[in-house]
């Protein structure tokens, strides 16, 4: 074998090895690249799935909230229609015919008027007032004032522009309305008052923000410690408790009475 032939064989051999090594390295690099691309893709896909999941959850929550609010509106409309076309028209018709009969039905007239007044206030609690206590008190004045005027009682109206209470839905609005309906009816029937003062303003209680409502009169007062419950105080207390509100009943002989209700701006978990 000549030297040149040996070199040629060796050269070919080395070239073949080099080519093999080169090929293997490239294959490996390609493989590694492919793996890393796949990993990146997997990661991106994972992120997209998470994002889509979050979006789905958000839209599902929004849908559910909308459903709840639609259901509330529909239910309110249904009850309104029921009251209006059914009980309401019936009461008005019964009242009209009872009034026609004259004296014999005077107790029926009183009872029917009372029922109609109660029904109107229940309707008011269903109206959307944006959780505004001032507007609730205003509705009560709107409904009660014509009868009060007949009894010679005037309102002294001191109602500030107060913020809405986000938690004040229809059932809670009815509690507020009934508490003050009860106290005003008590004043009209027992206190011999001439003025009912209604105050409403923002007030802190133990450094919590809230809205305070006070209804007071210049009548003869009553015994606050009396347990007879003749003034419907039991009812008022139960409603205040359901509201998570603070209630204060004050009165002095010959020095009028005062019902104060403090409502929190935000209701704690314990009240929910």
């Amino acid at each position: 074998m000549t030297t040149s032939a040996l070199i040629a064989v060796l050269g070919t051999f080395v070239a073949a090895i080099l080519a093999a090594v080169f090929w293997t390295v490239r294959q490996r690099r390609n493989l590694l690249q492919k793996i890393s691309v796949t990993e990146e893709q997997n990661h991106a896909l994972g992120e997209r799935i998470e994002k889509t999941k979050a979006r789905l959850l958000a839209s599902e929550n929004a849908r559910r909230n909308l459903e709840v609010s639609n259901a509330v509106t529909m239910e309110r409309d249904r009850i309104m229609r029921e009251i209006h076309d059914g009980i309401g028209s019936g009461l008005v018709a019964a009242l009209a015919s009872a009034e026609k009969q004259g004296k014999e039905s005077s107790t029926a007239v009183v009872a029917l008027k009372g029922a109609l007044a109660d029904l109107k206030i229940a309707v008011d609690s269903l109206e959307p007032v944006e959780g505004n206590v001032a507007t609730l008190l205003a509705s009560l004045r709107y409904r009660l004032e014509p009868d009060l005027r007949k009894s010679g009682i005037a309102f002294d109206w001191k109602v500030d522009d107060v913020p809405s209470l986000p938690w004040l839905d229809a059932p809670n609005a009815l509690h507020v309305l009934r508490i003050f309906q009860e106290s005003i009816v008590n004043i009209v029937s027992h206190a011999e008052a001439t003025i009912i003062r209604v105050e409403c303003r923002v007030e802190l209680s133990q450094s919590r923000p809230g809205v305070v409502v006070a209804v007071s009169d210049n009548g003869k007062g009553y015994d606050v410690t009396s347990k007879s419950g003749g003034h419907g105080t039991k009812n008022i207390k139960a409603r205040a408790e359901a509201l998570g509100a603070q209630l204060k009943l004050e009165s002095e002989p010959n020095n009028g009475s005062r019902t104060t209700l403090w409502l929190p701006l935000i209701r704690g978990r314990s009240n929910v």
Partner: protein
Amino acid sequence: MAATDQDIVRIAVIEDDQAALDRVTSALAVDPGLVIASIARNVADGRKLIEAGGYDVMLCDLGLPDGSGITLIRQSAKLHPKSDVIVITIFAEQSKVLDSIKAGARGFLLKDDRFDQCAEGIREIRRGGSPISPSIARQLLKEFQPHEARQELSEPLSKRESEVLNLLARGFSFIEIGDLLKISRSTVATYVKNIYQKLEVNSRSEAVFEASSLGIIDMPHQGR
């Protein structure tokens, strides 16, 4: 002032319930100037009544046997803009009253145990004032609020009108508001009527805006 208590007011009544009709008739008898000119008991007859015209005030019930009184209110407001449409309702629920006002009504009367005072209510509206309840005032404040999703209101509230609405929503009477703002009671009542008119105009232009953006109607081009 356009009308005095001596003026004869011709009244059209659209009401299906006979008992309620009887109550209107006897309630209006206290004021000899208030004359019932025509009566209809359903939407079909109501349409004919409105076409015939000849009334200054239309009292309209909403729940009629063959449809809603709202369509009649719209028709009357269009054909006889000088006549006042008054809705008669038991509770004055805000949704019904607001829909009526958007259709062109100028007030409501409560069809309840105080219906016997409706003669005074009609005179008040003829004098240029309109009744309002606190919850309706609260809802109106919301309706007139600037809203992102819609075009500018064509008739926004003036500062004074917002003040009046805010006080009404808090339960102050026309007289108390007059004292607080140093204006007369009748001016307060006129503000309410203006606010009702603006609500009607806005809801009409909003309906046009919505229809044109949906491609339902063509907006007239300028100069055509």
